[in-house]
């Protein structure tokens, strides 16, 4: 439905009335009337939002030059051009007569300048509000490497990215999301490396975004993800500029959003849950050990309760006799069947973990004492749960924290495997794992299978999977990028 765009007229009074009508009830809109010293027929009105504007910029770039400029004998229609080109010191000037754009500019911290007798207004950049300082993101810490993290301002984030990729191949395209929030987003990619199909698919899916607000990038990711009902993410996210730069160099596409430090990257492979920026900044040997530990931790976190329940309740003949005897002794007098014990303790652990995230620091000590010592120890002494179960849940919980990014999926899958194992023993567990594998094999993220590079079955592609090959070995871009060819001279060091 094509609407007639609201535009300005030549009359300053009418224009200012229109703007004020739109902002009725909003007390932070300031209208500053002023006129030129020499020629008092040149009336101006500047609109801005209180405290979003840097006052110095406003005073020195807008008010002062216009008040002092000797206009001479020019026609009124020229005033706007003259102001834009010769008078105002502002670094960014936009000329428009659409009221929509003017309103957008005012609410974002720009100043709108109207002159009597002109039907166009100027939008001057005077943005100056407080933003959070750059700090290392809490959940993506590294031992060694840059400690910069994104903050909530889109331009600052884009700057951080551009400083790392000083090439004209880096393309940034703005988009606006959300009817009410009008949030500015930006799609970034490297021209020569990106997979064009992924880029096209991403733009396609973003067009389907239909909410009226986009406060955080997660609103978007739920619209564009491949498997919306799955706990496993097919859209990656990160808060670190070095990670985004690395992913762009591999052929992925990044999506920034103003107002949130989290940046989306697509496509997202399963192995990316276990990759940490540390892996690339440390020696490849230690990095590989860390990677293997994380994978083992993931596997343990999924399986430990299920295997324990299966062995102790169904397959007692597999366990070594002394172990079986001590577990049997520990279970004397415990009222609950093993399954419910496991579920109970896992729930308690998740509650403790969730509380730990949100509690104020002052009661941190009390919580750890209450949680670990009182509940754990007393539960065992009171024979509510058996001691081996505490060990099992402890291992499960700690290895779950090792891979924080996938913990949502792990909690759900772990529960399902536990139930299956409780019903038919190790058979159930094996079927569960096979089902999980099939599920993962079927998933794809923007056209790339989620289990690649394992599913490509090419040796060179496995260089960053279970271990991290040395940098002089990683000579190709990933297979899904447009150029899976050499990115370095040869695969050897010299």
């Amino acid at each position: 439905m094509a609407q007639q765009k609201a535009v300005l007229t030549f009359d300053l009074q009418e224009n200012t009335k229109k703007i004020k009508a739109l902002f009725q009830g909003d007390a932070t809109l300031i209208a500053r009337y002023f006129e030129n010293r020499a020629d008092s027929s040149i009336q101006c009105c500047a609109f801005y939002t209180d405290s979003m504007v840097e006052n110095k910029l406003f005073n020195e770039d807008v008010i002062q030059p216009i008040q002092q400029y000797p206009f001479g004998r020019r026609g009124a229609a020229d005033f706007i051009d003259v102001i834009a080109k010769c008078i105002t010191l502002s670094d960014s000037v936009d000329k428009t007569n659409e009221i929509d754009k003017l309103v957008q500019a005012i609410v974002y911290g720009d100043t709108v300048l109207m002159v009597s007798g002109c039907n166009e207004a100027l939008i001057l950049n005077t943005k100056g509000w407080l933003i959070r300082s750059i700090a290392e993101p809490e959940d993506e810490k590294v031992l060694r490497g840059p400690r910069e993290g994104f903050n909530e301002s889109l331009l600052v984030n884009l700057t951080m990215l551009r400083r790392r990729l000083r090439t004209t191949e880096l393309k940034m395209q703005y988009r606006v999301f959300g009817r009410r929030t009008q949030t500015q987003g930006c799609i970034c990619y490297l021209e020569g490396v990106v997979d064009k199909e992924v880029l096209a698919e991403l733009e396609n899916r973003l067009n389907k975004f239909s909410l009226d607000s986009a406060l955080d990038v997660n609103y978007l990711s739920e619209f564009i993800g491949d498997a919306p009902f799955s706990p496993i993410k097919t859209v990656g996210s990160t808060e670190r500029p070095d990670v985004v730069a690395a992913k762009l160099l591999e052929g992925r596409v990044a999506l920034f959003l103003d107002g949130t430090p989290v940046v989306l990257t697509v496509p997202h492979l399963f192995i990316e849950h276990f990759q940490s920026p540390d892996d690339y900044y440390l020696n490849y040997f230690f990095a590989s050990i860390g990677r293997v530990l994380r994978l083992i931790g993931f596997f343990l976190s999924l399986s430990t309760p299920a295997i324990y329940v299966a062995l102790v309740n169904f397959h007692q003949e597999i366990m070594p006799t002394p172990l079986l005897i001590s577990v049997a002794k520990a279970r004397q007098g415990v009222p609950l069947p093993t399954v419910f014990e496991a579920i109970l303790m896992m729930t308690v652990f998740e509650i403790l973990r969730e509380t730990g995230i949100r509690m104020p620091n002052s009661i941190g000590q009390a919580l750890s004492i209450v949680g670990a010592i009182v509940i754990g120890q007393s539960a065992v002494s009171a024979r509510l749960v058996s001691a081996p179960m505490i060990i099992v849940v402890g291992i499960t919980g700690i290895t779950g924290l090792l891979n924080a990014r996938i913990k949502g999926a792990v909690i759900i899958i772990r529960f399902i495997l536990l139930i299956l194992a409780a019903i038919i023993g190790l058979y159930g567990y094996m079927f569960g794992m096979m089902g999980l594998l099939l599920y993962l094999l079927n998933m794809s993220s923007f056209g790339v299978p989620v289990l690649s590079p394992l599913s490509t079955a090419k040796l060179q592609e496995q260089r960053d999977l279970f271990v991290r090959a040395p940098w002089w070995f990683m000579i190709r871009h990933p297979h899904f990028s447009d150029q899976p060819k050499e990115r370095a001279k040869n695969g050897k060091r010299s």
Partner: protein
Amino acid sequence: MKKKKILLLLMAALLVITLSGCFDYRELNLLDIVTGFSIDRGTQGNYHLSFEVVNESGGESSGDSDGNSSESTVVESDGKTIFDAVRNAEKGSGYKLYFSHCEAIIISHQLASAGIAPLLSWINQDNELRLSLNLMISKANSAEEVLKLKSPLNSINSTALTQMLQDDAQTLSKIPQIQLYEANEELADEGVSLILPLIDHDPNQKKAPQFTGSALFKKDRLVGYLNADESQYLLMTRNAVKGGIIVLRDQQGNPGGSFEIKRLSTQIVPRVQKGKAEIAAKVQIENSLGEVMSNKRFGTQGEIQAIEQESEEQVKASLQTVIHSIQEKYDVDVFGFGRTISTHEPAYWAKNAAKWDTIFKTLPVQVSVEVKTSDSALAKSKIPVSD
């Protein structure tokens, strides 16, 4: 409509899984773990079984682990058959005996003399019992009293017995370790007769068990005993010696030294000449000279060779004595000569398998021993003694 179908499918799957699952679900604290049991003859022709069951409530809270507290109790029961007695053990207790960790079965020698095949039937057929459990014959008055003997090795008696058998192979090699699957094989095989370890009270510590030798079986009936030293040579012929000590005697017949067997291999070579069978047993021993108590010197190559020569003769003599004595006293081919002949000379075996026991009694056995001393431990030559 599609959503409804998926939902129905999901519900059906859930029903199938939950209704057909859990069939094997056993809570641990309701199981009585049996680590070993004994079979005796009871009153009125019944069988009397005693089960060593791990004591579940021994060690009250999680910190208690002193091994001296009695870790196992003995549950007794009677029954007309073995299976009957096993089920009768649950009378009133409500606990179901769990046999998957059973390691040792002790059979009294009275029952063994009447034949062990009917006893082994349930043990083989039940799905919980392992084929790798150890069989033993009790030389004491009953098997039950042996089951109750405590060993300092382990607070669970059956585990202690199993450990003793396993350690023996490495250190002494005087006691055969026969597991259930081996016993099945030897019972079924025509060419070899079963032997089982003998267990009795330890003469030094009345309350502890000790393995005292081996029992010889004809078909499945106990017919004879061998003491520990003779069992060593029996095992040697069977090629089942992995370690142990051979005592050397000097000219007067007194013990003059001992060597430790590092590796022993026996080859039984059968020969059939003119319809008559002969056996040549070649024993190759690699040893290390552990102890020389007499005045022999062993510093040079020639001296070592002299010692080797003597030991070869002595081992050969002992072997021949043991083999001949078994041939004379019993007509059971415990050495497995028949098995070897059936492999190497099938034609002869086909004709004579039925009368093998009689042939065995007069079978000529040639023993040859080869000894190689690889070292003499830490001493290069005889430790000098002077004023």
